[in-house]
């Protein structure tokens, strides 16, 4: 469900584990500890989707925190109503929405907090937490039925 590499050559999502970057010497670190977020002209970045942007290696977009996760959200497109609750409350910019549609989860940046599942209003939920090792297809095949309202 991750859209890593959906636009080849431009989407640098989750290239490296944090800390796995090359440790360069004093002569190669940036002057004044500055970090540039993009390569080239980025004046109109706000109007570009992530996969259209030319991210610099300094941008945390190019890193992954997937290893933080012990449980993961799995997304069920069949039930989703594209309300975008999960998008607005995701603390890790990991709900991928395009053109008002929820596309999936960015597993390189998702830390598995589970907020998206909590705020999902469908019945049954369109997002559920599973163990990190669980295969998504298997999770989807065992999706729960609609729950009756608890009194």
């Amino acid at each position, binding site marked *: 469900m991750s859209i890593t590499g959906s636009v080849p050559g431009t989407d640098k999502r989750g290239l490296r584990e944090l800390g796995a970057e090359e440790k360069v010497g004093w002569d190669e670190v940036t002057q*004044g*500890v500055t970090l540039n977020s993009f390569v080239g002209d980025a004046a109109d970045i706000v109007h570009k989707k992530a996969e259209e942007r030319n991210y610099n290696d300094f941008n945390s977009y190019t890193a992954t925190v997937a290893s933080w996760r012990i449980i993961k959200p799995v997304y069920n497109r069949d039930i989703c109503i594209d309300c975008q609750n999960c998008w607005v409350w995701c603390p890790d910019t990991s709900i991928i929405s395009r053109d008002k549609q929820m596309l999936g989860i960015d597993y390189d940046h998702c830390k598995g907090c589970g907020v998206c599942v909590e705020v999902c209003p469908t019945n049954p939920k369109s997002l559920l937490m599973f163990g990190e090792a669980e295969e998504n297809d298997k999770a989807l095949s065992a999706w729960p039925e609609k729950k009756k309202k608890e009194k």
Partner: protein
Amino acid sequence: MAKEFELNEVEVWDGNYAASQALRQAQIDVVAAYPITPSTPIVEGYGSYVANGYVDGEFVMVESEHGAMSGCVGASAAGGRVATATSSQGFALMTEVLYQASGMRLPIVLTVVNRALASPLNVRGDHSDMYLGRDSGWIQIDAFDAQEAYDLALCAFRIGEHLDVRLPVMMHQDGFTTSHKAQNVYPLKDSVAYKFVGEYVPVDDMLDFSRPVTHGAQTEEDWHFEHKAKQHKALMDSRTVIDEVFADFKKLTGREYKRVESYMMEDAEVALVLLGSSVETAVLAAKQLREEEGIKVGIVAPRCFRPFPYDLVREALDVPSLKAVCCMDKSAPGGAMGALFNEVSAAAYSTEARPMMTNYVYGLGGRDFAVDEAKRIMKEQKAHADAGHITTDIQQFSGLRGPKLGFFQTRRD
């Protein structure tokens, strides 16, 4: 457009006014400042230029000196020329941000009017604040009189903003003895001064939205050391740029500045090393003593306190005839030898003559340092030279009331 300020060929200015005129002529974009004695007139002078249309930039009167330097950092990262002024307690309050400014490689100019640090509270001039800044990663240049306060403030922008340097610069002058003493000053015309300082060239400009930049990132044990080493190298290497700027300034004005000023050292048998407005006193005393008693005294004055000019101090002291050197520190050393003593001794250690080194602490809290006292200290150095060993304590106090105070002796038995 700011109005041109009509200046005479010779003006009678004190050090504060001279510095404030230099700031005006540099066409600073943002001055963020907070007043404190004895540097207040710099800020007030600038305020009057703002009020009367001589300045195009913004003048932000903040709520503290910490705020002043914080504002300078924020403004400087936003890609323009920035300066402020302070003294003493204000300088101490700024200290946290001084380190941040240099680590972030922002070429802010800070005109410091040197003053003692409390406690006890004291508004007079000594070098405690200047010494407090010596590990902060700033270039520190010392003006000995009002003309120099003007000249070197203009140079400070050129040096700090040079793309090979990109470091903040402190331009020091002594509280009251320089800041409030009026003298003849030869200013440059506004246009000439600005042409010398030059247009500001932004680097990692927060207002260049085509290139979003993060300033002030955190570094831990895997990156911090490399960044500090890179910063240190830039500071050490700034020596070349300082020399270049001084050379250009001489071409423009005929006034010559060196990272280390030395006087009558060619044949000196004894020497005093000191900073600031006392240099003039010491030079006068040395001249008199040469005439009156034939004692060959020389004076060495590091104009550039940081980066410390080990090379040029060593060169100045590498005189075969030199036997005794006294380093004069105008700051309470707090359980050590004075900083000047330590650093000059380190430079002198590799000279051929390897002179005897002693230390005087003097002038604290604005205590006067007069020609007679300078001569007494010079004669004492001559006594060391004649005896072939240091005849007093290594560290002594000049102009102090009460029983004689001194520390450490060289044993010769």
